[in-house]
């Protein structure tokens, strides 16, 4: 029930945003986090952005993901 996944905001459009992770693009509501903007890393739960990741966390997430993509998946 508490499944929430990180994703990156690609596009903001009123109360909604398109977020992307690993090539999956989803339209989510930003009503709970209206301050998000393009490029931000966010936490998504049940179709809503519920939090922005701190810049350090975003950098960490991005680094881990880039690593995964390079190595082509888990070791």
């Amino acid at each position, binding site marked *: 029930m508490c499944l929430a*996944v990180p994703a990156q905001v690609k596009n903001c459009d009123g109360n909604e945003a398109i977020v992307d992770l*690993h*090539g*999956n693009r989803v*339209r989510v509501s930003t009503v709970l986090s209206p301050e998000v903007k393009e490029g931000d890393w966010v936490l998504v739960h049940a179709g809503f952005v519920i939090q922005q990741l701190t810049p350090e966390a975003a950098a960490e997430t991005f680094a881990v993901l880039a690593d995964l993509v390079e190595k082509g998946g*888990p070791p």
Partner: protein
Amino acid sequence: MDKSKHIVLAHGGGGQLTDELIANTLLPRLGNETLGQLLDSSIVPGTAERMAMTIDSYVVRPLFFPGGDIGRLAVCGTVNDLAVCGAEPLGLALSLIMAEGLEREVLESAMNSVREAADEAGVKVITGDTKVVGRGQADGMYITTAGVGSVREGLRLHPDQIRAGDKLIISGTIADHGLAVMLAREMPEVQSVLRSDVAPLNRMIGRLLDKVSGVVFMRDPTRGGLACVAADIAGRTGLHVVLDEGRIPIRAETRHAADMLGLEVLEVASEGKVVVVVRPEAAEAALGALREDEHGRDARIIGQVEDTRDGLCELQTVLGGRRIMLKPYGEQLSRIC
């Protein structure tokens, strides 16, 4: 309804409209000498000491999904079931059940896929049947495919061959098919790079068996996924199977889609992968043989059989712990294949 554009009940009646459907839609796509005879039974080309036979029904929804469609699935699923038993496919029988109102374009497209997949596998559809049911039934189309194959001489792949020490190999990334289909169905508005891996594996498996002796059992992880195959092996042999979580190849976008949908990725179907159980001394060679094929590039050794007699499968987790992997209950993912 325009019969040239839609399937009507009479197309399944066995009369003139059925003939027209076969002549104009089915034969041009699937046609070959044997099928073209249009007799009640067809003679199977080729013969062998031991024949293998299999049957599967395909009720996938949606009919078309990223990476494939019901037609491709209907060939690959059956071809692969023959291949994992060490049988070379000799011929397929295709039974179509269509709902009244199905667009002919949809049928044509699916049949094109059947032909393409059959060509890839080097097998032909040698006999078939068509029925039409009422509008709204059969969700557009169901296909049942039976396949006949010749089993390699002297080969007996069976769980009773499996011994402690044997290794488990997966031929590539798991769960891509099931998640591509589920996402297309449950979240059609999501744009995704996920694609079904549906593919015929008989050539890859043929090469594996040519090059390596020591393969004792194979299974394709379709419904129930890798968890089902591994738990089944443990259950049937009464031995203990351990899978190494960190070695199981999973695409990032597949794992992410599983998280979004709340699904256990290890329980999701693949339609272009095989689990190979092999003697430990042959494991590296088997891995090499699989990786030579385009469908086996990401093959990995992912586990082994241990001699504890508990019939259980465990996952060795990334954290370093262990937890049980039971056969899934199977209700979560409907209409994947």
